[in-house]
């Protein structure tokens, strides 16, 4: 039986991380603009913004590198 080309695991990881990164980044920006009444410890460093950005970049790198439709990839 002939099988279709299997998507690499890295694409799933990249897509999920990119979505997570954007969600965390946007939430972080909102919290930066409108600080919550009870901030977390070390919130002055805005870890949600930087961590969200990092996760987005990692996710996008994986998505671009393993995007299956840009060219045929050998098995």
């Amino acid at each position, binding site marked *: 039986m002939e099988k279709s080309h299997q998507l690499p695991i890295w694409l799933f990881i990249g897509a999920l991380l990119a979505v997570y990164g954007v969600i965390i980044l946007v939430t972080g920006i909102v919290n930066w603009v409108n600080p919550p009444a009870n901030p977390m410890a070390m919130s002055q460093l805005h*870890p949600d913004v930087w961590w969200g950005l990092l996760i987005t970049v990692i996710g996008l790198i994986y998505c671009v590198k393993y995007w299956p439709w840009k060219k045929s990839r050998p098995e």
Partner: protein
Amino acid sequence: MKKRIGLPALALSWIFAASCLAASEPAAGKTSSHLLTMSPVDLVIIVLYFLVVLGIGFYLKKYTHTGEEFFMAGRKMTAWIAGLSFISANLSSLETMGWSAMSYQYGMLGAHAYLIGAIPAILVLAVVMMPFYYICKTHSVPGYLKLRYGEASRSLAGISFSIMTVLVCGVNMFAMAKVMQLILGWNIHFSIWVSSITVAVYVALGGLLSAVFNEVLQFFLIWLGTLLIPILGIIEAGGWNQMIATINAAHPGQNFTSLWANLGSPADNPMGLHWTGQVFGLGLAISFGYWCTDFLQVQRVMAAKSLRSAQNGTVIGAVLKMMVPLIVTVPGLLGLAVLTQKSGITLVPEHVAQTTGGHSYNEVLPLMMSRYLGPGLLGLGITAMIAGFMSGMAGNVSAFATVWTYDVYRPLIHKRASDAHYVSMGRWSSIIGVFIAIGTAYAAMLFSNILIYLQVLVGFFIVPLFGVVILGMLWKRTSPAAGFWGFLTGIVSSVSMWIYIHFMPHGFDPVQLNPDHVKRLAFTPLAKDMAVNMYSAFWSLMITCIVTVAVSVLTRPKPDAELKDLVFGLTRLPDEGPCPWYRNPSIWALVVLAGLIAVNVIFW
């Protein structure tokens, strides 16, 4: 086409119902005591995770038709995927939370589980044992016993491993439910059923391939969801050196920041442990048993596309394992430096917390999460915990399905069925295994300390298994009868030692330790549960090896022709083409070993 649309729709409705129920739980239940409160953003992150995990299972079903594809993921994993899956299957949240608590309680001693308690064994698996597992093309560790010793040894290993995996899977479920109840106020039955049915669905659909895919994903989530805690914690503590200074100043006369300096005498450390127990009990018996012969672990790297990938994947696993203290030990130490010193929160043993209403050692990681992780990040942290529990469960379920189908069902119940029949049995046994595990999850509620319970199970079954497997691989004189009797004697002696140390003057008590009996086994009455388990494992390994050697001398070995590709000296490595130094597993194993020595010297 209709069916393909229907399955994802079913998954969506399952997730939707589950998320609604989860969201309603905090409001409906008695939640005043839970540690964390999630925002809608956090809930979206968790729901997305469940959707992706189930989606991967549905997607991969079409790639798992044959037994080789379902049980061994087609043996096409690259070294990186095999290595990440190898470590992720072990990195359960039970372990991360448990060892963080251990670090708060005992300091750096807890990090030994990731150093001498893992790395030498993983490197031996990569360099010494993997060629035998891989070249004989067996489906499982009990399958190797069949080839090396015969059906009796395989059946004993298959049945004992099947029992152990469903017990451990159930314990993981219970632990996850308990943690979710503690930190989020979720209903315990809700957590057990949602997590277990999700794992059952994706493993039954995609077999080991699905489990491996999800484990690699879970590895990323566990690290990204947890790594921010030590980073922010160390910044808040004023740097690493300041953190150590704060801990030492707050605990005069106690040593929380050494790996070996306080192991000279059992009286010098709160575990009641001498260095001999650490080296020979944890570093030799438990570690080698777990990492070299527990099929849950070995299955991941046996699924690699070549022997070299399997070996390099295992070495990659060793490197990743050595990094885990960053997200486990450091948060525990930060608990001492930050929680106690800056917030005035002192953690206490579980039984004290239950009577006084304070926080227990086990809550150190959730407390650190609640300190640093705001909306969004908290959802990622909780997802990391759920992912950790589910990877542990899925590892057990996929290993159970393989061993049950190939090492119990096929040889003992239905010998000559088609490959499709065995794949179908694998899918059904994944689901049935999860339901049995749910039963054991409820049974686990009866035990007070589940980490100790897990260690005892490994000592019962896996340590004796390592004894007969390693002798079988390295000494061709080891006979089939010796393999069986050595293994059986090891199991019986482990169980007997456990009963012995819990046998009190008034009768058997599974919770209390008899100090007189502990002294005979561990050389000191000061030894606590974990220290006693280390010595018991060592004695069990010794008994297994002595009986195996003695019976081998008295019985007839297999002829050399039947030991080809199974024993050292009779196994020829396959020609996999030229191997540049940077792909040579032996070289990398030496580099990792040097790193291990350096870490131990630095934190002596």
